[in-house]
């Protein structure tokens, strides 16, 4: 496949991410997927930080590497071929950073990114939902000393390890929600146990309860939905890149296996039904890659309707990744179902990734409303 995602200037990022994934992630994949789920050992995050993966789109003067969405996609895709957990960490952190940037909360962000400790840099966020889907968001009260938050919020990604969380909360009497930065080390914040999830086990998640926890407003009151939507529009394509990488990993492994495994006296790839399944996987994967690349182009050039392009890409690619990874197990037969082979993990990770940035049916509904309104 001509990797259309890869403009010449992206090759170095691809090599970097590829080397990193094979050196740091491949041999840890099985272990970091094992119960009790948690994080990779510290070296993985430290190395990722060193390479700039915890600040891919962050400006250089804030400690990032100042790249655009294409570099983000290339890096996420490459990492996910090996293990999507780290990609989920990078995705969530980038999403939170970008929201802060969109909200103009540069000073707040600077205070977080100044640290050299990778865990201090991480900002947690409930990235597997759109805050609007939560009926009972925490509520914020404004006092003399600033805002304080109370209530609970589910499934905050990175909460078990990050020092900060970007929390959506409602201000009494206002529509919509506002976004706040909360220090998770505060005694007024209670983190639940690391949650047992379907996939990306090395990307920890927890529910959070807030009891009047001090919070700093991000941007303006009531502007949460706008900041989230604006950022999500760009991040959709990154979510698609995660699914694309998972698909590629699944396809590569299935193709190799089908050449090695013999049944009926020859490699199973010679059975035409197997060829058909592999071809379907390749078709879905290649189209996904083209879609991600085109969406990156559209975003970079800010062509009209770029956001529709990004949303469409995410919905399509996140969905087909679930189908492709299902076949990815099937090609291996019983072995595909075992934890030793990585295919079952890709199946789980793809299904997990489908929920990134909110429920797919609601996103579809928004998409058609937007397309309709553009006529």
């Amino acid at each position, binding site marked *: 496949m001509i990797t259309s995602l890869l403009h010449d200037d992206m090759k170095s990022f691809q090599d970097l991410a590829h080397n990193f994934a094979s050196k740091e992630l491949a041999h840890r994949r099985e272990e970091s997927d094992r*119960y*009790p789920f948690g994080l990779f050992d510290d070296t993985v995050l430290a190395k990722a930080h060193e390479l700039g993966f915890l600040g891919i789109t962050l400006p250089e003067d804030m400690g990032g590497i100042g790249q655009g969405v294409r570099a983000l996609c290339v890096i996420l895709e490459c990492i996910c071929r090996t293990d999507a957990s780290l990609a989920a960490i990078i995705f969530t952190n980038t999403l939170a950073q970008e929201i802060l940037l969109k909200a103009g909360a540069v000073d707040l962000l600077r205070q977080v990114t100044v640290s050299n400790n990778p865990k201090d840099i991480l900002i947690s966020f*409930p990235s*597997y*939902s759109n805050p*609007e*889907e939560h*009926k009972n968001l925490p509520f914020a009260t404004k006092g003399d000393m600033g805002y304080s938050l109370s209530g609970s919020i*589910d*499934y905050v990604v990175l909460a078990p390890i990050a020092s900060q969380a970007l929390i959506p909360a409602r201000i009494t009497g206002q529509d919509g929600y506002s976004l706040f930065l909360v220090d998770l080390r505060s005694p007024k914040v209670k983190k639940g146990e690391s*949650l*047992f*999830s*379907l*996939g990306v086990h090395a990307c920890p998640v927890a529910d959070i309860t807030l009891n009047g926890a001090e919070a700093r407003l991000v941007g303006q009151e009531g502007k949460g939905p706008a900041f989230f939507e604006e950022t999500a529009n760009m991040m959709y394509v990154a979510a698609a890149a995660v699914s694309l990488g998972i698909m590629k990993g699944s396809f590569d492994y299935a193709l190799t296996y089908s050449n090695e495994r*013999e*049944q*009926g*006296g*020859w490699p199973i790839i*010679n*059975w*035409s*039904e*197997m060829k058909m*399944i592999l071809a379907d996987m390749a078709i879905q994967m290649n189209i996904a890659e083209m879609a991600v690349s085109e969406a990156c182009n559209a975003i970079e050039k800010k062509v009209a309707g770029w956001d529709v392009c990004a949303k469409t890409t995410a919905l399509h690619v996140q969905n087909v990744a*679930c189908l492709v990874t*299902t076949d990815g*197990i*099937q090609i291996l*037969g*019983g072995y*595909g*179902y*075992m*934890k*030793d082979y990585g295919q*079952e993990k890709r*199946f*789980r990770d793809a*299904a*997990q990734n*489908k*929920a990134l940035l*909110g*429920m*797919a*049916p*609601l996103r579809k*509904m928004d998409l058609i409303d937007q397309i309709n309104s553009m006529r």
Partner: protein
Amino acid sequence: MIPNSEVQSIMKRFPKFEDSFIGLEYAPRLPKGIIRETKELIAYARKFNDEVVRPKALLLDKKTHEDPDYLPYDLMQTASEWGFYTMWVPKLFGGRGKNLPSLSPVVEEISSACVGIANVLAVHYLGLTSLMTSFNMKVTNRILKEVVEGERKGKPCLIAFAITEPIAGTDVEDNDLVDKGRVTCRAERVNGGYVINGRKVFISMGQVSEWTFVFAYTDLKKPSQNRVDFVVRTGTKGFSVGRHENKMGQRVCPANELIFEDCFIPDDQVLIDAYTIKKFTDKPLGEVMQRHMDYISSSSKAGVCAIGVGVARGAFEDALKFASETEVRGRLLINHEWAQCILAEMHKNVTLGRLAYMEANHANSHRGIYELLQMKPMYYYLKFMPSLYFRMLNPMLNTGLTTWAMSKMYYDMKKTEDVDCTSGLSSLAKFAGTDIGVRNCQLAMDLMGQAGLRHDRGMEKRLRDAKLLQIYEGSNQINRIASFKGLIAPVYPQTRVFEQ
């Protein structure tokens, strides 16, 4: 309208009436008592779900993550106390003698709460069916007596089923493939029995079952014509348990490697081999063995379809509950039209899946493996005669006469069209029901979004559990080919299967 002779001749054309409307043809022959019995059994399974399965399912799944070597002895004990391991053992063998097709809706019921736990119960019936369909009444009688005794003494005695080998999975399932493959489980004829060497993999409940049904081959170059089907007791010298597989789902039901190293199997544990078949047929061993496999799978694949339907139903019920409690964009999810359509689609899948296994079982009852037991006089006779009567009859099973009669009937006289139809339909049900299982889980995950990802909501476990159903009892690709072979290929004699 048109003369009967014309009706008959038109309806002999493909698709034949008798193959397409089996349930309708069977309906007048169905003993009415089966309906009530089945209803009672489903209610019993629901109670079991409420009291045992639902409270344990997630806890046990978590436990198997904490301890990947966890074995479900407690659960087996409980299932045994509820009578599940003898429920479908015919009364003639001392069991509770419930009608065998009713196993499917019961399995659907339990799978709707937890597929792994359903398999801790159901795998035993795969082993049991493989024994019973060998029609070696003496060996079957001996082992089923132990099963019944096990339940009485509170020491569950289960039967596992082992045919898959490390480098021959699909290949051992069909005689057209096995000679091209590389089977390695060898049976060497010695005085008084066989010596077995080789390995089996992925054997569900292998480690915790008392007996295992096994295929081995006296000639590895021509296995199709040289198979030996036998049973081995766990703990026998030369027979050991290897690795405990680390699976994505259905984790409470262990899958093991089984190892044979110069393991002696006496003749009285051999079910079918080249010698035993001579007593009842002139057919080649390969043909008899393929038929044995067809009988096993026509029963078990209907059951796996029911498991698929069960998990599809569980996913539907979870999604429905979620939708009825969760407000999205100012309205309960259940009141969004798009969500209603997804729920209707899931419900349709469950309903059609159920029809598929019911039809496969009607075929088994009308023209297949359950035919004898499901005949009205036989059904009522077995149902209403007291246990004492069957205890008196039981020694007859050891005389050889019953083995001869049953083998003659099922291996020598049964029409090939009936076997093709029943095994084809059960393969169809298998891939239909299990694809539905995975599909409904994926739809439920879409509907539940973030909540579906959490273990404590149960949905993610269902998805992990469901995927296995598309793989075991033959991959769904192979079941498509098997249904083509049984139901479509006979129409065109020039059709060749597994030849490219």
